[in-house]
Structures are given as structure tokens and as C-alpha cells.
């Protein structure tokens, strides 16, 4: 699916409580003195693919385990599908499917039998969903083989089928593409986007793979050392979190004339030399690149190339984590936060 291969467009993150499928406030998990999750305020809007991005050991799985009631929170509050946890755990989890770490099954049972086990716990009506769920993930033909004969990729698919038994409004997937081959990863991405775009499900996807989050997700939170460093739409995160700035790299035949021309243009927010050419920060939407080109041509500047700069979440991620490495948590705290933007710089 072409969409899965492109970076999601920035769109406002709804902050209305009714639009939030996951909401935590001051959520903390301590193991002795060490805080694995440290006063996290997470807000995941409904109907999107939301990435939970962080390096190994950042606290992603611990966060997921708390949300699913697998471990108790030390402090703070959580709401899942509008239900407070743990008070309304059963109601909250009824329409939630999850894969935590690698999907595990009874190896001596077949794929179908493993789903029967979970269907029995979910309720009698769920059994009718076993066959369609297996078909959905492409395991119908091998559903009666014992799981111990499944490859890791097949187990991942069976894990997704197990999630689908809940007819989930929310899927929580922890490192879901581990063990999948490239074709499987691509299919998986397509399935996630279909679930979000055509079925209205929300997918909360934890990963340490920047590329994966960037390609699948609409929005993300970057977590490191138990703290959410920043969260918001992917494009805003990549742009720096204080509003989207579209940039161009220009190749011109007269650099000085181009600099003076662009400096006088309202369309241009900033322009400077770089190794690649002139780096132009647009004041407006990407379409203003055409107007910049026209202005240069009118001024007699030959435009040899005009390339939009694709902001990378990886750049942003490395920038954020490198600031933390330098003890720069305070730098983030003091970074300007756009009140109207959904990209929030959060410190605990």
C-alpha cells in the first residue's frame, strides 16, 4: 500500500478527553528506587496509529504492561477507552487486543486451539471470530498445525489474530514486526493502516525502530528513561515540535543574488548557505516553493535544483536523545511549546 510507504501528513491531535483512547496522568512505576516510568502524561487520540518510540530499556514495555493491568502502577492514573484503570479493567479491556513482547502460545496446541483458549476467556460470542481472524492473517490453511512448528513470523500473525478476537477498538502492539521478513513487514504495515483508515481502530505501536514508526504512524511519543520527551503528529515531531517548517535545498547559478533576493521575500522565513546549496526555510505551506522559484527566476537567478527537505523522525529522535545524554532534560523543559500545536514537549 502506497500510503504505508510515505510519511503521514501532519494533522491536529485532538485533545478533547472524549477523543482520547489512552490517557495517563503522572503515571509512575518504580522498581525499588528506580523509576522505570516516571510521571508520564500520555494522550493517545482515537482513530490513529500512534507510535511509542524509544530505545531499548526506555520503559515502553513497562508502560504497556501497566495499561493492560499486567502490573500495578506505583502512582498516577490511567484511562483506557474512557474507563478508569484498574477500577473498570474488565470493561476497558473487552475491546482491546494486545501483543506484549513476543507473542507466546501453548506450543502443544494448534493455532486454532490457542485461539479457542483466549476466545473462551473473552466470552461465548467470540468463538465465531476465530476462523475469520485466522483467515485475516493468512493462517487459515495452517491453523490446525501445532504452534511449536510455526515460525516466529507465523506466531506474530497468530498474535494479531488473537488480538482480532476482541474486535478491538484499540490494538496495543509491542515491537510487532520482530521476526517478520520484509514482505511480512510490508503486509503488516498495510494491515495496520487498513485497520486505522478503514475500520476506525486505534493502534498503539511500541517500537525502537524509527523507520517503522515513521512509516506506519500518524503520531508518536518519544520515550526515554521512563519519561515522555515529546509527543505529537509525526511531521511536527520531525520538524522540531514548534510548528511545521518546510525547507528546500536550492542549487543556483548566483548564490549572492539568490541570497539577497530570498532575504527580501516574505515567503521565506530563513535562508542560509549549506554544503548542499542554499537551505531555505519557508514561511508558509510547501506550495510556496513554486513562488520562491518564480521570484528567483524573475530576479535573474538560474535555479539548477529545488529539493524539498524531508524531515526525518530519526533526526529528531537523535537530537532529543543526544540532548538528554548531555543532561539536557532542562533544555527540553525550556524549549518553546506551541500552545496550539499538538506536539508537546513534556518533562516530568
Amino acid at each position: 500500500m502506497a500510503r504505508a510507504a510515505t510519511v503521514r501528513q501532519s494533522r491536529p491531535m485532538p485533545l478533547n478527553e472524549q477523543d482520547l483512547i489512552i490517557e495517563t496522568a503522572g503515571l509512575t512505576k518504580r522498581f525499588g528506587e528506580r523509576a522505570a516510568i516516571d510521571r508520564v502524561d500520555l494522550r493517545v487520540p482515537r482513530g490513529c496509529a500512534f507510535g511509542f518510540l524509544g530505545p531499548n530499556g526506555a520503559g515502553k514495555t513497562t508502560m504497556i504492561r501497566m495499561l493492560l493491568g499486567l502490573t500495578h502502577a506505583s502512582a498516577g492514573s490511567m484511562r483506557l477507552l474512557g474507563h478508569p484503570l484498574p477500577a473498570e479493567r474488565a470493561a476497558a479491556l473487552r475491546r482491546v487486543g494486545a501483543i506484549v513482547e513476543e507473542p507466546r502460545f501453548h506450543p502443544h496446541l494448534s493455532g486454532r486451539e490457542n485461539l479457542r483458549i483466549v476466545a473462551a476467556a473473552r466470552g461465548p460470542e467470540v468463538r465465531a471470530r476465530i476462523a475469520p481472524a485466522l483467515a485475516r492473517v493468512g493462517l487459515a490453511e495452517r491453523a490446525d498445525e501445532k504452534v511449536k512448528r510455526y515460525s516466529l513470523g507465523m506466531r506474530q500473525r497468530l498474535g494479531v489474530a488473537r488480538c482480532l478476537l476482541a474486535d478491538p477498538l484499540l490494538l496495543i502492539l509491542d515491537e510487532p514486526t520482530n521476526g517478520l521478513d520484509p514482505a511480512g513487514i510490508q503486509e503488516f504495515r498495510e494491515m495496520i493502516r487498513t485497520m486505522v483508515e478503514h475500520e476506525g481502530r486505534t493502534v498503539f505501536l511500541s517500537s525502537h525502530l524509527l523507520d517503522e514508526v515513521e512509516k506506519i504512524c500518524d503520531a508518536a511519543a518519544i520515550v526515554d528513561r521512563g519519561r515522555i520527551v515529546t509527543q505529537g503528529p509525526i511531521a511536527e515531531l520531525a520538524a522540531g515540535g514548534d510548528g511545521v517548517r518546510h525547507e528546500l535545498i536550492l542549487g543556483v547559478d548566483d548564490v549572492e543574488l539568490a541570497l539577497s533576493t530570498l532575504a527580501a521575500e516574505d515567503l521565506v522565513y530563513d535562508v542560509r548557505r549549506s554544503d548542499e546549496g542554499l537551505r531555505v526555510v519557508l514561511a508558509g505551506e510547501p506550495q510556496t516553493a513554486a513562488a520562491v522559484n518564480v521570484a528567483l527566476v524573475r530576479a535573474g537567478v538560474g535555479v539548477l535544483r529545488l529539493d524539498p527537505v524531508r524531515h526525518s523522525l530519526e533526526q529528531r529522535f537523535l537530537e532529543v536523545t543526544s540532548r538528554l545524554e548531555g543532561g539536557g532534560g532542562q533544555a527540553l523543559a525550556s524549549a518553546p511549546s506551541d500552545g496550539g500545536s499538538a506536539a508537546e514537549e513534556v518533562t516530568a
Partner: protein
Amino acid sequence: MSATESVPPAPARPGGSLTTVAAQMFGADFLKLRRKLSTVIWSLVLALAPLAIFFVVRAIQHSSTPAEHPPAGGLDGFSDGLRLLALFMGPLAAILIGAEAGAGDHAAGVFRDLVVTGRSRLALFAARVPAALALCWSVMLGGFALLLIGTFVFASNMPTPSGTLILEAIGFTLLATGVVCTVAVGLASLTTSRPATITALIGWQLVASPLIANIESLGGARDAVLSQSLAHFSPVALHGHMGSVVSMGAATAILVAALWLAVFLGLGAWRTRTMDA
């Protein structure tokens, strides 16, 4: 993976009565157990093989020296075989089954996936007990069938047990092994480890219990030994035989067995409810 095939939507409210849900959960847990071939085979071996060996050896002894060795079957053979099945080897099979039922989900790593369904952890724990009992009792009934075959086939001219005695013996076998199996479910749910549970309970059953029961200086404290309280319910005389050395009243025997059940079921339920999944 197909991105487009649809899965039937969930109804607005969860369906099914409590009984239906309980029956399904029992069925699921029983499925896990009965498909675990290593557990089923070893349980059958423990329950059947000693009985088969017992009858075959005694039949050979009787055929070689009838004056010294009575027939293998009959009422005597039935009594000895019952002790072997209900108080000695049957409980070992029950321990294997109970340990698998109590710790199987943890060993496979699927307990967290069951918790994520939103189903009460106590319900998940509770479903293990009847499933374990169902398999345990199926194995024991197989063993009891072998006991009856040996009793009647090798009876020769000896008296055979009455129908009432047979029914009482079935009840006794199911009670004795059922209690041990349930204790094993509770302990395995507490430890979440099959090897630890099996080692601890077999060690208790085969080594510690007979030792404690034979230390007369312990007096009434020996009543707390589970196998001694269970032996009290035997329909055939056991006192002085293997498996029964402590005399106690019926009320004490019931109380001791009930306490064992309550303690281990309570601990298993507590651990299942509170542990990190």
C-alpha cells in the same frame, strides 16, 4: 496477511451466562491439559503400570508356589491394589496433572494474554481446578478399571468385593487423588513452576509424610499429614499397612483435608490475583 478480510464485529454487550462462560473456560483448560501428551502419558504410566506389575508379579508368585502365595486378585488383591492406586501412585499422577494445570499458562508465557482479555484473574485460576480434576479422575478411573480387572481375573476361589465396596472404593480413590491434585494446582499457581511443585509435593508425599507419620513422639501433630487424613476415608482396612499409621476421628480427617485445600487454593488464588503477569 489480508488487509481487507473482515472479522465479525463484537456485540454491544458481552453475551453468555455465567454458566456458559464457566463451561467454556473449563473446556479450554481441559483442552490444554488433555492435549499435553507428556503429562497424560506419565500420569497413565504412574496410575496403571504399578497396578499391572502388582497383579502380574503376584499371579506369577501364586502360580509358582500356590501354598505360600494367595491368588493375586480377590478381596485381598483389591485392598492392596486400592492402597497402591489411591494413596501411593495415584497421588503422584495427580501431582503431575495439578502442577501442569496450575503452572502451564505461566510456563507457556500465555498467562498475560489471558489477563489481557479482561477476565478476572480469580476466574482464570478457578477454571484450572475442575479441568485438573477432570483429567485426574479420568486417569484414576482408568486405573480403577485395571484394578477391577486384576481383582476379578486373578480371584481364583477367593471372595471378591461387593458392588457397594467397589462404589465406596471409587469414591475413596477420587477423593484421595482429587484432594492431592487440587493441592498441586494451588501450589503450582503459587510457585508458577511445574518442576518446583512436582519436586516439593512428591518429596512430601513419598518421603516427608511417611517419616512424620512414623515419628510417634509428634503425637497429634501427625494428624496434619494429608495422606493420613485421606487414609481415614478408605473403605478397606488400612491401619498398620503402607499409607496409614495414624488413627484419627472423621471430623479431624475432614478438617485436615479441608484445611489443606483451603490453604493451597487460597495461596494459589492470591498469587494469581496479585502477581505481575
